[in-house]
């Protein structure tokens, strides 16, 4: 044992030598305005534009040289075209059958689960079955696999897709247009929502994404617009008349949140009256659970008879009755509003640069957002502006953000992926433990109940309980290293080598002084690894 420990110590020292010199240089007499070194920039890019470095990245940086590597990396990330997934990952994702179902088929599945559930409850009441869980649970069998597969798609891509920026942006924009999987059929639709409304647009046009979210049944149901109707609407048909839950008037939930959260921002200059008037303009925007033959895959429907055909006064303008076009016009106005540009710019700068982003940067991003508003690559242009900004690469931004639980879990697993060998060996066979860790940390995937989604600032996540949980997570992961095919045997030295320039000398000293079996726990539990 003693021999092995000494051996490891020597290896560590050898691997660290090139990094250590830069660590010392950074800590001795370098001010807050010292430019980042090339290797610091490369790691910063992996952390801010991706979910953190893997051993393979560190090896590539060493082999190619940090400056050249970074140039290629940035070009590839900003390409915006769909990336080719590694075959192992692609095959595994393709095997998940529910990711191929359209909105209608997914809803069918939800309804079947509901019917079976009702049947089961009736049976229980009639005494045909005992009240315990022995019988099949339709929700568990029909609905949960859909959410689980969506979660797996999300996590495996974030772990292993070469298009890391796309994965960071999918998380950012899903969160911006958050829907909650715990509310009725949103459960079966979250994956579809991400695939159809969010992912195709993260490098595209904001108005297109806004429209896609507004019309997706997940959003229509989550923020209740599907049920919001003109005050004088009377349903036709026997069935609807008997339904005690039939809507009888406005519901202003979506109209408020689309202005407050999705576009203008809470101080974006609208009043309660504007909320109500927008709700009236959006009446009839709903979904048809049973579209006829030949319908598109989208369930969105503008129900003329539910629409409020009166004149509206909204954001200082008079809106003449014009059916669905009223809502389309509203989304046009909101998507190209300067307050929307500022709101989106602030959020992007906060997510990618600093909890308290520099106002000049926010202004430049907002200007770019507006200048490119009619472009099909508007959001890629904005990201280009962000990546070119000196603020992103400043010493002040380096290691300055605190990881959210999502990022902490993903970056932990990425740093433990060994350098060589087929990727398949390193993808977790089961993502449920990761989902459990996110639940426990207060950030369940697809589980933000409220429409504002999750925050990405230190104030939201830095607290004693988070450190306790992360150290526990680090130890659990460490104990499983090498014991399951899910996590290959990774030596602490490799982790040290991958994280090199990100570690303080206090961390390096503590890791070197610790028993080998504790080193990975300490690295993942270190203050340096809490930040990115």
């Amino acid at each position: 044992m003693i021999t092995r420990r000494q051996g490891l110590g020597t290896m560590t020292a050898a691997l660290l030598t090139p990094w250590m010199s830069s660590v010392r240089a950074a800590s001795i007499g370098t001010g807050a305005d010292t430019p980042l070194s090339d290797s610091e920039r490369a790691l910063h890019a992996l952390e801010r534009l991706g979910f953190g470095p893997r051993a393979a990245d560190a090896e590539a940086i060493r082999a190619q040289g940090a400056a050249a590597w970074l140039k290629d990396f940035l070009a590839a990330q900003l390409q915006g075209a769909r990336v080719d997934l590694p075959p192992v990952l692609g095959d595994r994702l393709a095997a998940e059958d529910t990711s191929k179902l359209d909105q209608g088929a997914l809803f069918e599945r939800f309804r079947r689960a509901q019917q079976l559930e009702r049947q089961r409850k009736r049976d229980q009441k009639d005494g045909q079955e005992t009240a315990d869980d022995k019988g099949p649970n339709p929700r568990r069998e029909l609905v949960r696999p859909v959410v689980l597969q969506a979660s797996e798609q999300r996590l495996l891509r974030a772990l292993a897709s070469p298009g890391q920026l796309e994965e960071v942006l999918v998380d950012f924009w899903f969160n911006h247009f958050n829907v909650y999987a715990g509310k009725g059929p949103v459960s079966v639709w979250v994956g579809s929502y991400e695939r159809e409304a969010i992912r195709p647009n993260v490098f595209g046009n904001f108005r297109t994404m806004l429209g896609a979210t507004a019309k997706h049944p997940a959003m229509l149901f989550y923020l209740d617009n599907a049920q919001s109707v003109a005050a004088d609407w009377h349903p036709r048909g026997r069935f609807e008349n008997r339904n005690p839950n039939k809507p009888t008037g406005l519901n202003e939930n979506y109209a408020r949140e689309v202005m407050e959260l999705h576009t203008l921002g809470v101080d974006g200059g609208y009043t309660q009256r504007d909320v109500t008037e927008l709700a009236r303009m959006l009446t009839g925007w709903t979904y048809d659970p049973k579209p006829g033959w030949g319908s598109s895959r989208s369930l969105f429907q503008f129900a003329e008879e539910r629409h409020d055909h009166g004149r509206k006064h909204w954001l200082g303008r008079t809106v003449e009755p014009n059916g669905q076009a009223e809502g389309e016009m509203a989304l046009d106005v909101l998507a190209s509003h300067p307050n929307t540009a500022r709101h989106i710019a602030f959020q992007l700068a906060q997510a990618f640069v600093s909890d308290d982003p520099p106002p000049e940067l926010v202004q430049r991003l907002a200007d770019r957002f507006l200048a490119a508003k009619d472009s099909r690559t508007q959001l890629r242009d904005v990201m280009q502006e962000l990546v070119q900004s000196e603020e992103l690469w400043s010493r002040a931004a380096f290691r300055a953000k605190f990881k959210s639980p999502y990022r902490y879990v993903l970056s932990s697993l990425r740093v433990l992926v060994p350098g060589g060998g087929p990727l398949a060996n390193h993808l977790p066979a089961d993502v449920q433990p990761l989902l459990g860790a996110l639940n426990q940390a207060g950030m369940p995937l697809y589980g933000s109940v409220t429409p504002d989604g999750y925050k990405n600032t230190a104030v939201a996540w830095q607290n004693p309980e988070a450190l306790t949980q992360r150290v526990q997570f680090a130890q659990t992961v460490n104990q499983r290293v090498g014991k399951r095919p899910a996590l290959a045997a990774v030596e602490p030295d490799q982790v040290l080598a991958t994280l090199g320039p990100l570690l303080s000398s206090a961390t390096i000293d503590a890791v070197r002084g610790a028993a080998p079996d504790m080193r990975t726990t300490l690295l993942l539990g270190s203050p340096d690894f809490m930040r990115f």
Partner: protein
Amino acid sequence: MKRRHLLQLAGWTWLSAATAVSRAAVPTQNKLVVVMLRGAVDGLSIVTPYGDPHYAQSREAIRLAAPGSDGGVLQLDNLFGLNPALSPLMPYWQRGQLGFVHASGSPDPTRSHFDAQDYMESGTPGLKSTNDGWMNRLLQAMPGAATPTRAVNMGATLPRIFSGAGEVASLGLGPKAFSHEAIDDPRTQAALAAMYAKDPQLGHTFDAAREGRGEMQRSMAADDNMSGDDHAGMDPRIDRGAPSANGFAADAQRLGRLIQRDPHTQLAFTSVGGWDTHINQGGAKGQLANKLAALGRGLDALAQGLGPAMNNTVVVVMSEFGRTVRENGTHGTDHGRGNVMWVLGGPVNGGRVHGEWPGLDQSALADGRDLAVVSDFRAVLASVAQRHLGMDDAAMAKVFPSGREGWAAWKGAPLVRTG
């Protein structure tokens, strides 16, 4: 309809009590627990003004019936009744340990959940630049010595209300909240401490984790229910996700037990989500009633966990704003203004609904649609803090640095008994 009985009538007697209230800050062992209902609960369905002639006509599918009828509210007085789903709390009302302040809330008119919660937690309505929370400022301004567990937050994340310079211990959710974790292992902890000691941003958080856990575990060591399971970690313990009313009771009881056993714990906070009932809210039965029933069980469990400590604990329940007086087009309610605050505990002057009732007739409604805010939420909190936690005026001004006329309005109001 106006109802001014308490504040105004009792005004004279407060003058004599005022000397006691403005005495210099004196350390106490009294405790304050704040429970926040995130998502804006419909206060009119909690303490229902069945006696207000405009109540019944404003609501249909979600209306609660008068006391005595099927599914009717539990009578509190001639104006108000309690949602029948909250029947486990009626004994507290009858013993005088539960009271309410109706038509209370924030002076800021925002109907954004997120801004309104922020204001209620920062304690500075309308002011976004405040970067700490009022409970953290209270922790710092309270007389007596600071200890690692003087303030305890229950939940996975530190809420805005507790952010700030004062050290706040964390109590996790779920049955394993007190179990041994990797961070408690002396070897691991020593190595981590060496790393974190050199870190200016995170060192403080690490110390809070280490010290808080140490003290909580010592307090709970003799507890029969303490779990010794140290194999926690990656199990998908879905019940530990975002807290909902349903999972609240066990957590609340655990918090109560901790407060009972740790004499240093004086401030605690937790929150319960899922009150944004825009659709099919239900009446005496249904979505909201189910959640309220779970909340009622949770508060009852908290009181049981507190045991004898209930005698010097005040629990305040609050929510960011109320909901529209009129039912919306989808049998729910939209974002409104005034709400009801709950005050529960041994020292509470309960068995009555405090505050002025502005009424529900059209002319009395805020913006023609919402219950008006008559009582500033800070006035309610300041009244509790001053009478119960021994805060003098100077200390109180640190907790609520703005809007003195707002928070001092209830100075000396007898929400809780002193001494």
